[in-house]
């Protein structure tokens, strides 16, 4: 806010916009993590492990990418993990019944999207605060999925379908290609379409956005539908990777997904963040968890570490806001 700061930022010297600078810090953090892990463990810098990290990051990224758009509008979707459970179990059933992976995939995506639309309607039309609406939805989905699965597991899918999750192309896992695809698509959508720009505007000031003629309700529904659909995508890849579906399949994914978005620089207050940032955030989180794994830290520490990271990321954001 200081006058001196304004002048230097407008001076004709090489300078980066604040967003790019923030991203570079995050990339630097990811790089440092890699270096540290290669020094600390022998297992880190192996092709296998790197590919493994990328594949795990991709699963997280699908979920986090959809969530990024929601958080850009200043909302939150706590139902994404439970949504994976429902979509995966539905897709698994359809594949088993019809024998068609295509129909199964469509069913999974459709279910995820439908849940997202419900969330969007609750937030936009019923005006229920998003964190509480999607929290209620979480338990509704949880209940439905557990009831439907009744503790059973559905497993054994056609090899072709399993390729989506565990196959390789040119030595690189298929999910990594999907991740790159969604990264490009998501970035183009957020940065290079009118809808994307309007989503940023809604998050920056929803009241002003409405009074600027942006159809806020429709955009909100769209965003939650996207988030749901991305949960559907994650469920399909997850299903293909695990080759089995259980009711609790995505339960532990919500917190990491939120963490990835927040590490990626998005603000819970809306209007700030990017899909690419979330990609970097997903990488950082996966590297941390992978490193803990390689260092033989008990897996029980993972939710704790993730929780601390979430709080820390929000605190960083708050601190940055107070300064400006």
């Amino acid at each position: 806010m200081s006058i001196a700061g304004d002048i230097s930022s407008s001076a004709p010297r090489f300078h980066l916009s604040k967003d790019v600078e923030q991203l570079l810090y995050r990339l630097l953090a990811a790089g440092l993590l890699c270096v540290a892990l290669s020094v600390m463990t022998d297992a880190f810098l192996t092709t296998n492990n790197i590919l493994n990290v990328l594949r795990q990051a991709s699963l997280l990224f699908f979920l986090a990418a959809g969530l990024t758009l929601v958080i850009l509008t200043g909302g939150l979707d706590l139902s994404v993990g439970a949504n994976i459970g429902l979509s995966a179990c539905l897709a698994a059933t359809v594949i088993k019944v019809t024998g068609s992976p295509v129909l199964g995939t469509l069913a999974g995506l459709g279910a995820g999207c439908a849940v997202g639309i419900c969330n969007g309607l609750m937030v936009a039309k019923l005006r229920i605060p998003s964190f509480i609406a999607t929290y209620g939805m979480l338990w509704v989905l949880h209940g439905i999925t557990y009831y439907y699965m009744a503790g059973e597991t559905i497993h054994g899918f056609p090899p072709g379908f399993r390729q989506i999750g565990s196959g390789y192309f040119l030595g690189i896992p298929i999910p990594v290609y999907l991740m790159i695809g969604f990264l490009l698509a998501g970035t183009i959508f957020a940065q290079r379409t009118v809808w994307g720009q309007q989503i940023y505007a809604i998050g920056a000031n929803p009241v002003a956005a409405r009074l600027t003629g942006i159809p806020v309700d429709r955009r909100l529904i769209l965003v939650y539908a996207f988030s749901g659909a991305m949960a559907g995508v994650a469920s399909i890849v997850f299903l293909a990777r695990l080759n089995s579906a259980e009711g609790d399949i995505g339960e532990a994914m919500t917190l990491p997904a939120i963490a990835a978005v927040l590490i990626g620089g998005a603000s819970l207050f809306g209007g700030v963040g990017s899909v690419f940032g979330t990609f970097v955030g997903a990488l950082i989180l996966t590297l941390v968890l992978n490193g803990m794994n390689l260092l033989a830290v008990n897996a029980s520490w993972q939710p704790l570490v993730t929780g601390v990271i979430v709080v820390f990321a929000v605190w960083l954001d708050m601190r940055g806001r107070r300064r400006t």
Partner: protein
Amino acid sequence: MSDQTLSSPAPRLPAVPGVAVALGLLAALFSVASPGFLSAGNLSNILVQSVILLLLALPMTLIIMTEGLDLSMGAVLTLASLVLALIVVSTKSLALGLAGALGVGLAFGLVNGWLVSVLSIPPFVATLGTLGAAQGLALIVSDGQSVVGIPRFVRQVYSGEVAGLPMPILIGAGFYALFHVLLYHTRFGTYVCALGGNRDALTLAGVKWRRLLVAVYMLGGAMAGVAALLMTARMNAGHPTAAIGMEFDAIAAVALGGTSFEKGKGWIFGTLLGVITVGVLRNGLNLMAVPSSVQVACIGALVIFALFLDGMRSHKS
């Protein structure tokens, strides 16, 4: 403004609260659907089983009144229950065990309160983070195993009777009375209301509200510690996933009871009714042999409905 006068508005008939209607309808439904529902034994059973939920819902009411939320309560309860079980098993001292459980609760309450009040982190994220932390710690201290071998005297806390009344009922009634007094007859209660309604008013009145807000979350943690005692006594064990998600039932009960997520509007008797409604719903669905997963879904739907009504009401006024 000219149509406004300074005289009192005509006394309105007290509207029947939605939660009472829901409770009545559910009770009627279940007494028709399953004959065992209306038996004295079952009704007392409902009350006894609702006590743990009540212990969480009471402080949750205060937290929600401050426009906050505590998603970590179920996980903190689980962790406290494990710590209590471990201490009691090794020292055979209930007092030490309870102190441990309360310590865990207060510590998490302090962290939650600090994050929300001092760092101004939105409550749902702050407590989502501590939820992860508590869940992780629960797995770590228990190594993923149940803690068994609880001495018999611990069980008495849940199954014992005093003057013919079950212990849990007495404990529940005691804490209900305590919270009623706290909310309606102390400065603290007035300030809790103002924390959600108008923090500037508190600042102007010279009240240091940040400390109060920390205290509200610490109260929530402490009550999770108390609930952990009942939970451990009831299950006769400490279980690493015992109360996961229980905060949702608590939030549901509070929301059903008419406490609003905005403007510091709270009603402690409504929370009691909300707790009983959730208890009746769970019990009735149990009697009808509906699996617990569907019960969860029903409660989820009920909460969304309650919030929708809440929104409608506030839109009208």
